């Protein structure tokens, strides 16, 4: 792995995070223009690093915990750049970019160098499964950020202390974005689970083995399914936002705890 390149990427993510936060604090337009540009250049370099590493190990570099974190950070950055249309959405950048920087930093900290993948796992299903799962996670993380901002703004409005509108998107826009993200994230999560089951079938001869990661995934899937169903019967606004935050908390617990505390096939050491 290329430490110098990763270092530059991390620094650029931190600069982008700083620019977004500074923009929200001061309202200076120049920062608003600068922040996404820095984020985009960081993501471009990051893409190079991931591509280079994947080329070196012969499969997409998402097999270890550190690679997972790095790929998640990258997906989040790209996703935010895709969503960042309206000026007021910079507030999401203010939530997402620090998260990207933290994930990236964690990835560097836990790094142990590239590991060889056991032959049993070398399959075309690996990139499919892991990419889908991480994209799904990134989408849910963005939905989570959207919901945080929603709850914050809702509280301010209820307390009769509205902030500066120029810096905050309308509640309606946030709610709409939340809905769209959920309806993207849910299929990704579903496909991630299905592809994982198929891969497991080829690798170990079983679709499902009730290990911790799988159970957590099922719990998360059920939660998001409920939420998506709820949205169609009027769970909008505040309630949808609260549930999205809860759903992501469960997802986070599942992601971290399984990787750290219950290292099975999904943990730090594959194939153990």
């Amino acid at each position, binding site marked *: 792995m290329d430490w110098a390149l990763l270092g530059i990427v991390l620094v650029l993510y931190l600069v982008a995070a700083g620019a977004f936060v500074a923009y929200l604090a001061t*309202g200076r337009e120049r920062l608003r223009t600068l922040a996404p540009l820095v984020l985009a250049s960081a993501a471009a370099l990051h893409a190079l690093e991931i591509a280079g590493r994947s080329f070196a190990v012969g499969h997409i570099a998402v097999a270890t915990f550190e690679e997972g974190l790095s790929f998640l950070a990258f997906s989040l950055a790209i996703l935010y750049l895709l969503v960042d249309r309206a000026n007021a959405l910079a507030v999401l950048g203010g939530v997402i970019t620090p998260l990207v920087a933290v994930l990236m930093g964690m990835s560097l900290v836990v790094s142990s160098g590239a590991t060889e993948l056991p032959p049993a796992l070398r399959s075309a299903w690996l990139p499919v499964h892991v990419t889908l799962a991480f994209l799904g996670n990134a989408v849910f993380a963005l939905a989570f950020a959207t919901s945080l901002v929603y709850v914050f*703004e809702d509280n301010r*409005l*209820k307390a*009769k202390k*509205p902030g*500066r*509108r*120029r810096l*905050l*998107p*309308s*509640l*309606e*826009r946030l709610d*709409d974005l939340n809905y769209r993200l959920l309806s993207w994230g849910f299929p990704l999560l579903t496909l991630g689970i299905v592809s994982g089951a198929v891969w497991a079938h080829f690798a170990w001869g079983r679709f499902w083995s009730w290990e911790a990661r799988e159970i957590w995934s099922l719990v998360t899937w059920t939660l998001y399914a409920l939420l998506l169903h709820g949205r169609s019967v*009027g*769970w*909008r*606004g*505040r*309630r949808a936002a609260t549930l999205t935050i809860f759903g992501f908390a469960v997802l986070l617990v599942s992601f971290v705890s399984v990787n750290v505390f219950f290292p099975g096939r999904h943990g730090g050491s594959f194939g153990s």
Partner: protein
Amino acid sequence: MSLRKLWLLGLSHHSAPVELRERLALDDATAGELARRLLEQVPGLEECALLSTCNRVEVVGCGDLGAADPAAVVGILRNGRPLNDEEIRRHLYLHEDRAAARHLFRVASSLDSMVLGEPQILGQVKGFYETAVRAGTAGVVLHRVFHKAFSAAKRVRSETGIGGRNVSVSSVAVELAMQIFESLSEKTALLIGAGKMAELAARQFRDRGIGGLMFANRTFDRGVELARELHGTPVPFEELSRYLPMADVVIGSTAATEFLLTEADVQEASRLRGYRPTFLIDLGVPRNFDPRINDLRNVYLYDIDDLESVIGENREERGREAARAEEIVSEEIESFWRWFENLEVVPTIVGLRDKAARICRRELDRTFGALKHLGDDERKSIEAMAEAIVNKLLHEPIARLKRVQRPDDESVILARRLFGLDDDD
């Protein structure tokens, strides 16, 4: 010799009551006409422009102030209207030079306005400047001072948040609605009652492109009337609960002593709306809507006190921004002032050089006339020497003049007198 001064004479809401201001107010055409008359009748006046809004009547002029009598200016401003000159003069202020420029810059930047940071004033100042240009009463100094005032105002607007916050009930209400709804074009507002403030709010919502307006009034005819005026739909007051679920924005301004809408009413309407957000604005005193409505999910209720407190915060913010705006104005004043001063020094330097060049030429011609046998080379040498002597002699005085800070500086006056620049020759 004339030393130009910039001055500004006028009255505004700071100095004069509205009764006087409204009687002195001028329209565009009259302002141009009066500016021309001022130039004709006030001795020493070189340029002038008039400015008249509902808050101020002012004359900006440039010329020799010594000869200009404020009484003559007031007489022309009065323009035959039945007003007491003495009464007007008591409310007048007169600013000179830097202070005059500062006043104009502050007016254009809306720092002198009744509502700090209001955006209309810049357009009004521009309008009256154009009037002066059309009337032919604005010259090099006024062009400069007005353009500098405009650029100061633009900087103030873009670099400070002075105009960024709303300070009227209706605009704050619309602003809040825009914080809840992404766009108003597919939203419907329901007005209950026909108070003045509700009508203003309704107009504001219509101007910002609200999709539909419904009017419910106890006297149906008044509702019909308002609906016609604002292109809305009158709805029967008795069937409020039928129309409530259709409304995204509900504005109440009746004199009712009991709550028009209770928590239960709005909860039911919200359920029928599929819990889409609802924004209620209570302009009634006593209040029209039960304050507990604000506790409902996806429902936001602001009463008149809430709106006033938002306005209060916005005002404070504008006040804070005004300090930064004053700094910008000061910077722009300095840049204008350097130019204006040079305007006085420059003619002196130019005059000095012209005079020296003329003398030099005359004496050379005389010498060459007497010494006809000189060749071209010799002539050139003598010319060069004469010019060098003149330049060496003038070098020090000109260098000193260039360092002069003020147009009425002793050395400018002395230079003009010593070299006889204001004598006819």
